[in-house]
């Protein structure tokens, strides 16, 4: 066995180009995850029992079914019910919706750390619930949940590789294609792994910096 760095060097541009899509899926997925997660979290702790139950079922289902299966269902279901999304958009949506279940729980945990007195103070001032959430609770929950949210983003970078199964040309898929041409799976997949690792390293470092910034204030 000769480990050929030439193969890696030769194909690196393609892999890096594909990594852009990996990043897009995970970052866009994270945005959807946070946006949806806020609402699911709000429903999860709302006063209306049916909302709470609906949120609990959502969380339980999306956390209980393998993401790969969710992706497949999404891909076969959407056309079936007459929705025609580009593959990339469908993948991002699926990843985001799944992740939202986790984000909702992260935010719920963070909200519990906010003293109830703050809510009471806002109530005493006659602040509307929407305003309370937008200005007081959500910003603090995001800050408190920051470490877990960064973790979640790292997770999304990793699970974005599943999108290769439904034919999206992100990093894993492109690595597969290159392997098909070069018959050099070891080199190509190790190179892909290194790129994933570097992306996650950068994210976790950025997360640490952000955390320190937030703490100082």
């Amino acid at each position: 066995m000769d480990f050929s760095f030439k193969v890696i060097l030769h194909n690196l541009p393609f892999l890096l180009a594909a990594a852009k899509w990996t990043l897009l899926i995970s970052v866009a997925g994270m945005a959807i995850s946070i946006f949806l997660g806020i609402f699911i979290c709000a429903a999860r702790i709302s006063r209306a029992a049916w909302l709470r139950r609906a949120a609990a079922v959502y969380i339980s289902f999306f956390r209980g079914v393998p993401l790969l299966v969710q992706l497949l269902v999404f891909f076969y279901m959407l056309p079936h019910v007459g929705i025609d999304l580009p593959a990339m958009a469908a993948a991002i949506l699926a990843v985001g919706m799944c992740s939202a279940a986790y984000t909702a729980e992260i935010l719920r945990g963070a909200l519990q750390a906010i003293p109830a007195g703050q809510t009471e103070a806002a109530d005493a001032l006659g602040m509307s619930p929407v305003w309370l959430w937008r200005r007081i609770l959500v910003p603090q929950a995001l800050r408190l949940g920051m470490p877990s949210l960064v973790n979640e983003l790292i997770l999304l970078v990793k699970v974005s590789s599943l999108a290769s199964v439904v034919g999206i040309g992100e990093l894993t898929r492109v690595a597969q294609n290159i392997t098909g041409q070069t018959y050099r799976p070891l080199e190509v997949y190790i190179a892909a792994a290194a790129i994933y690792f570097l992306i996650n390293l950068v994210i976790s470092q950025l997360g640490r910096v952000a955390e320190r910034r937030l703490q100082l204030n």
Partner: protein
Amino acid sequence: MEFELFHRYGPALLRGFGVTILCWVAGSIGGIVLGFAIACLYRWSWRPVRWLLQAYVELIRGTPFMIQLFILYYGGPYVGLVLSPVQAGILSFVIYGSPYFSEIFRSGFGSIPEGQIEAARCVGLGEAAILRRIVLPQMLVLITAPLTNFIIILSKETAILSVVTVPELLYETQTMAAETFTYVEPFLVLSLCYWLLVVLTSWLGQKVEHRVTRHLRRANA
């Protein structure tokens, strides 16, 4: 919905379910054993070994499972490691799970106050006895929840094994869907199956946790 399909493909699906369970259970047990070994090595060895272990943990946790699986299954033969899909699936599970398990064990070790261990050293207990009699029983209580949690996460990752043609539940379902040109129903039913599996194991996990923490609750009563 064509339930007749499920009748025809029932045996294949059941076999697939068996393979899923096999990979999951074998992978979890192997991962726990390897993870425990890593955590112990980390605790009782010199700095260079620790760096190596830390690097291993970070590398595995920083890369997707699917890529690890590909390296093992497709790359393995190039270094003389020819594995069947199921073997590759289980082995990759062991490797993938071990750093997460080792971190759980490490945090468990860390949760026992140093003073208790010093007290044990003072009466002459050896390291092995301290681990077995003082550290493990107490940390078991703390780590059951994260342990079952991660085992449940692993149960879902089994679906990824279908990508390297491990004949597990998702793979068999995909085969059925492709042969019969029905897609929506099989995957919906499949989702339900996984969901039930996860709900069931979470419930079981809670039972186990309840049992394990029994003596603690009695002690605090």
